[in-house]
């Protein structure tokens, strides 16, 4: 079902954990639907004065594909300028892993969305102008969160916590 590359990233995930000193965080997914990713980025200026993702890390609740795409997307984004990082697509993440089963493609979308949200949060917090593509995606992601909550309203709430 999974490629060797997916298994490799699942078993030895890169950039996993929480950064001590991060510039922004992108939180996507919903625990009731089984996928959550928190992405931390540290933005710094490179020698040419361009803003780059100097460091990146993530924490993910999810299946094998969700964990592997978290790892792969962080690898792709690391060291990239913000503009280049914005351009990263979920297809690129999936291709980096040698492909994903069709039913798991949404996991790669989760990783791309988390990156989008982290950069959005960074620019928004700094009061900077948000590139239109970033703003559009942010709108879509926010709408999806509402749709998910709607969809799972019928399911039982977290009535009790585990012992």
């Amino acid at each position, binding site marked *: 079902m999974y490629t060797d590359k997916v298994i490799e990233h699942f078993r030895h995930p890169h950039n996993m954990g929480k950064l001590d000193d991060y510039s922004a965080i992108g939180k996507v997914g919903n625990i009731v639907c089984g996928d959550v990713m928190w992405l931390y980025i540290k933005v710094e200026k490179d020698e040419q004065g361009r803003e780059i993702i100097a460091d990146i890390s993530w924490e993910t609740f999810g*299946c094998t594909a969700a964990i592997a795409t978290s790892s792969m997307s962080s690898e792709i984004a690391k060291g990239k300028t913000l503009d280049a990082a914005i351009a990263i697509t979920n297809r690129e993440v999936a291709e980096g892993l040698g492909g994903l089963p069709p039913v798991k493609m949404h996991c790669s979308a989760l990783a791309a969305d988390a990156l989008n949200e982290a950069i959005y949060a960074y620019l928004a917090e700094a009061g900077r102008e948000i590139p239109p593509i970033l703003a559009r995606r942010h709108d879509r992601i926010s709408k999806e969160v509402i749709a998910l909550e709607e969809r799972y309203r019928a399911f039982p709430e977290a009535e009790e916590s585990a012992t």
Partner: protein
Amino acid sequence: MLLRILISAYQCQSVALGRRGDLRRSVMRTPVHLTNRTNLVSFLQVIYMMKQIYLDNSATTAVAPEVMEAMAPFFSAEYGNASSLHGFGLRTRHAMEKSREEIADTLQASPAEIVFTSGATEANNLAIQGAARARPNRRHLIISKIEHHSVLHTCQWMETQGYEVTYLDVDRSGAIDLDELRGAIRDETLLVSIMAGNNEIGTLAPISEIGAICREKGVLFHTDAVQAYGKIPLPIETVDLLSVSAHKLSGPKGVGLLFVRKKTPLLSIVHGGEHEQGRRSGTENVPGIIGMAAAARLSFGEMEETAARLRGYRKQLIAEIAAIPGTQLNGHETESLHHIANFSFQGIEGESMVMKLDEHGIAVSTGSACSSPNLEPSHVLVALRIPLAMAHGSLRISTGRQTTAEEIDTLLKFLPRVVEELRVISPFKVGE
């Protein structure tokens, strides 16, 4: 070439001493020219198989050697069609009818009450649809919310055909309320279908009491006994219809049966040569039936001993897994099949747990959404009203007659590590 084989075997052995899962990876990465040698591959697979721990016996079981042995002649030497009049056919029929008697004995039934099918999915379909055809005026069905898909989806389809279905709620342990059942039965109720032991959480239903209520109210009672048959004694005096599958009890896949109590109204849903007294057409799967009888013999012969052993494993699993923080048992601690134990682990997802355990050669299953084709969590766990986040982190461990104490210890050694590894990755930390 020989040198290559020896090197590969040596590598595999040494890897096997390390992490079990790496062995399979190394087998999968065997150079192409070696994978062309089928004998080498099967040789490596044999080594690989020996290192596996199979704890998914609710999904299916290994066919026992004595079952294979009993079946073997019926593929080649005794291949006659049981409907034929010549010697080949008569010998086959004789063997098949002997199997029918043996199986009937295990249910304290008469041979005429056993209808062989292609498995329990067909048996469940036959029970519900066949009874509906025989009593077309009764347009109401009652099932629980935790029935197997072969009952649940059949009833959902019946709804599209104008039937009304009552889906009984279950409590946190998976038990229905008998008063609610009693209250749900109406004049036009055709049948009540409640599984004897749940396939995901193991919870047992009081089938004697349910059957008595159905008798009293004059409705049919069907029970899906796929997980319970051959595992525990089944009191079926009040059961009208009962489904069994061979491959859950060390028998072959593709064969099962429906017990149909004498005088129970039932019409065939598969038409053709009028086999099985006109209740199920299609040439009987004789090797399969012989195998199912052999598997029943085996299971009933060692029932008490196996049950005691597996009950001990279940107790041990419940006690030791409870020691991992943020876990819960799904189902009932005691009113349960002894071979199924289902747990949830807070903050982590079931599919990744299954994959991590598979690295160590341990096979279990999950009711998580990510493992299902429609990305919905198991309907059984949802019906128990387990918080969705916990349903995603579920793990089903199902033991079998070949499970050893050492295998349980190995699982319990790796499981806390796997949980810890995934919790480190997860944003949801337990105890924070």
